[in-house]
């Protein structure tokens, strides 16, 4: 297959080609520009077809898990579907963590997996695994294609399902004989899924009820999640407009950061376990909560029985199964966030609605008192770098540049969420639902591929970064100027923090022993290695990192004992936050029910 046949095949004309060629043709017709993958025996025909064309670019990762995370970074920073191509057996099983991550965080992914030839399926053939069986619970949907004449249609359906409704990963398993077989190609214009039609337009009665509650609120709060970001930039603009029209406070989940400008005075920052004091107390004391594309996750709600006890709750979500799953709500609104919020904006303007200004002023006065607690404050001594300080300085240095931040998982992730303010959606990529250590570096790779000229930084911990460090090689190969900003405290910090608070300071296996010299490691991968060990070195190191148009690993040696506060302990309510080691909550201990929670 040449580039010409990819683009010159006429519409409507039955086109015969091999299954492998169909895969490429279908990707082109779906507008795919980049595929993240790793070859192997069961996908060789597709790699051969890939070799003979120039429309689709292939990024060769170093581990299949990273291929999925890279596709996630690509998808979340562009709004497009991320595409992955891996081989059978270990290729597919290695992708499982990434697929689960994408399912939990609703990221549209199409993952093509090779499979042994159909006549060998079930025979324990070399590099065989039951890919559809293994991935069934960790995908939105999956397919095994047994007939080459069903292949093109299946891939088009996979893209449709991945991006429609609540997005998610879809696996298409492709036996090798199907890739070799000849069949008729059908284009996406001729494919319509026979039943899957998620509801995007809201029920007018639900909208009306939501509007009534919003308009009559005295202590309102918008609680905005990743569904708003997923709904697209227009949805985020509509939400921002609604917030400004009403003057109501806004808090965001970890996944929702950037949906509303983080620097806006109406933003209370992040809600939840390590969210701001003002956000969590506002959640606790509000009288009308408007959940917008958020899912009442346990990291947000804390103790369910004590969750926001005085509020009427509106829940706007495209996924009906998210509604009333953890928290019973008063007004469910099933639909696309953009459509729903757009209608609420129109109603607010059209009816000349006015917020109860006196009640709202009192509410803001109360919020401002909570704000005055300054819950993220920390002391920066001369001797040792506080991790918060490093992130704060990084944030200051990045202002004014288009910056995409990815993270690994742990304390550094929470500090990044607390101290980095995002004014636009799709610029913050983190593993929220699954909490996948090793996510940030490959995700940054995917973001940088999509945005070659932007500044892409993976804020990492020294433990997480080692989980997918092999991707430094991919970064080198494609000359991606990704910056890795490691907060190195020589501990799996969040594990250590929980062991300190819950397990009597018995630091079982949480010390990062035998760490590599990250500066030399950078050098080994052809990247620039930098290190800061003292507070007065932080700015210089950041400056140097940003000045270099090459991949950089920065090893910021930070305080080993710093804990991430504020914190709602497991099993506690929002108004039982621990503010810090010397916080004002007194003798806060974790309850017995809390101990068994994660």
């Amino acid at each position: 297959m040449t580039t010409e046949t990819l683009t010159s095949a006429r519409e409507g004309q039955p086109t015969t080609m091999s299954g492998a060629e169909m895969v490429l043709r279908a990707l082109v017709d779906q507008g795919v520009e980049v595929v993240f993958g790793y070859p192997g025996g069961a996908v060789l025909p597709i790699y051969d077809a890939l070799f003979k064309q120039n429309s689709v670019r292939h990024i060769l990762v170093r581990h299949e898990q990273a291929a999925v995370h890279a596709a996630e970074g690509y998808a979340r920073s562009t709004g497009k579907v991320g595409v992955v191509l891996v081989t059978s057996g270990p290729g597919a099983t290695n992708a499982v963590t990434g697929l689960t991550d994408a399912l939990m965080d609703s990221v549209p992914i199409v993952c093509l997996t090779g499979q042994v030839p159909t006549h060998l399926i079930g025979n324990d053939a070399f590099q065989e695994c039951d890919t559809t069986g293994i991935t069934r619970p960790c995908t939105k949907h999956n397919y095994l294609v047994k007939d080459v004449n069903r292949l093109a249609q299946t891939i088009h359906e996979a893209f449709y399902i991945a991006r429609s409704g609540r997005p998610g990963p879809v696996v298409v398993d492709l036996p090798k004989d199907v890739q070799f077989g000849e069949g008729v190609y059908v284009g996406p214009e001729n494919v319509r899924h026979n039943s899957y039609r998620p509801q995007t337009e809201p029920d007018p009665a639900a909208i009306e009820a939501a509007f009534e509650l919003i308009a009559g609120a005295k202590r309102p709060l918008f609680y905005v999640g990743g569904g708003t970001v997923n709904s697209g930039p227009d949805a985020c603009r509509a939400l921002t407009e609604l917030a400004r029209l009403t003057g109501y406070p806004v808090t965001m989940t970890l996944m929702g950061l950037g949906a509303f400008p983080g620097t806006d005075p109406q933003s209370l920052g992040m809600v939840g376990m390590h969210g701001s004091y003002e956000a969590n107390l506002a959640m606790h004391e509000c009288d009308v909560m408007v959940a917008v594309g958020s899912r009442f996750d346990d990291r947000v709600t804390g103790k369910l029985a004590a969750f926001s006890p005085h509020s009427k709750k509106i829940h706007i979500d495209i996924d009906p199964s998210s509604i009333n799953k953890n928290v019973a709500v008063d007004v469910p609104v099933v639909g696309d966030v953009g459509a729903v919020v757009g209608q609420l904006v129109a109603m607010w303007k059209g009816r000349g609605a006015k917020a109860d200004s006196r009640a709202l002023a009192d509410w803001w006065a109360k919020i401002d008192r909570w704000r005055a607690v300054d819950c993220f404050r920390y002391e920066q001594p001369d001797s040792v770098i506080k991790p918060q300080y490093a992130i704060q300085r990084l944030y200051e240095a990045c202002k004014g540049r288009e910056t995409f931040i990815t993270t690994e998982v742990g304390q550094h992730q929470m500090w990044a969420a607390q101290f980095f303010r995002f004014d636009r959606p799709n610029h913050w990529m983190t593993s929220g639902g699954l909490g996948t250590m090793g996510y940030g570096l490959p995700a940054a790779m995917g973001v940088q591929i999509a945005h070659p000229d932007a500044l892409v930084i993976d804020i990492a911990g020294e433990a997480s970064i080692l989980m997918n460090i092999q991707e430094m090689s991919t970064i080198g190969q494609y000359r991606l100027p990704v910056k890795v900003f490691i907060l190195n405290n020589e501990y799996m910090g969040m594990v250590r923090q929980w062991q300190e608070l819950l397990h009597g300071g018995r630091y079982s296996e949480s010390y990062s022993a035998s760490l590599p010299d990250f500066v030399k490691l950078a050098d080994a991968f052809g990247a620039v290695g930098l290190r800061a060990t003292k507070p007065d070195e932080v700015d210089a190191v950041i400056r140097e990192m940003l000045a270099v148009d090459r991949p950089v690993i920065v090893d910021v040696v930070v305080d080993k004992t710093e804990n991430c506060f504020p914190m709602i302990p497991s099993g506690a309510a929002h108004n039982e936050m621990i503010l810090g080691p010397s916080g004002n909550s007194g003798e806060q201990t974790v309850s017995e029910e809390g101990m068994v929670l994660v």
Partner: protein
Amino acid sequence: MSEPIERHTFAVIVDNEPGVLARVIGLFSGRGYNIDSLTVAEVGHADNLSRITLVTTGTRMIIEQIKAQLRRLVPVRAVRDLTDEGAFVAKDLALVKVVNEGANRREALRIADIFGATVADTTLSSFVFVMTGSPDKVDSFIELMGALGRIEVARSGIVAIARGSEIAGDDERGG
């Protein structure tokens, strides 16, 4: 403040495609829901649809959640909560083999007659009864037979349909 546990019967119409039953069962095991009974058969050959009759228990919130999760599966066309919709007919079928002799053998035949069970197979020392009815009735029949000899039982699980003249919409009927 523990919520009461409810028992619900669902009719789930699905595309008859490979793996669809595994998706439904996997959903129940993965999310910790109960399955008391599950039956499946193709009901609409032309549309390639199957109907799953599923009996489950849970609090009202869990029951609603199960329905929402089922509807989220791509090959699921419709989920009907027969328990919520009103009266419905629920039938179970059991094949009961009874091995006995003498008076017990005559008594087994008499009880089968009372229950309206038919004889599908007989030898000089055994019967195979076909017993159809509500699950409770089938339970009592099996219990009585157990008292009259050694038994082996095969059961279909429950199939159910709403009472009345209403026919579900095309997409929900499966046929």
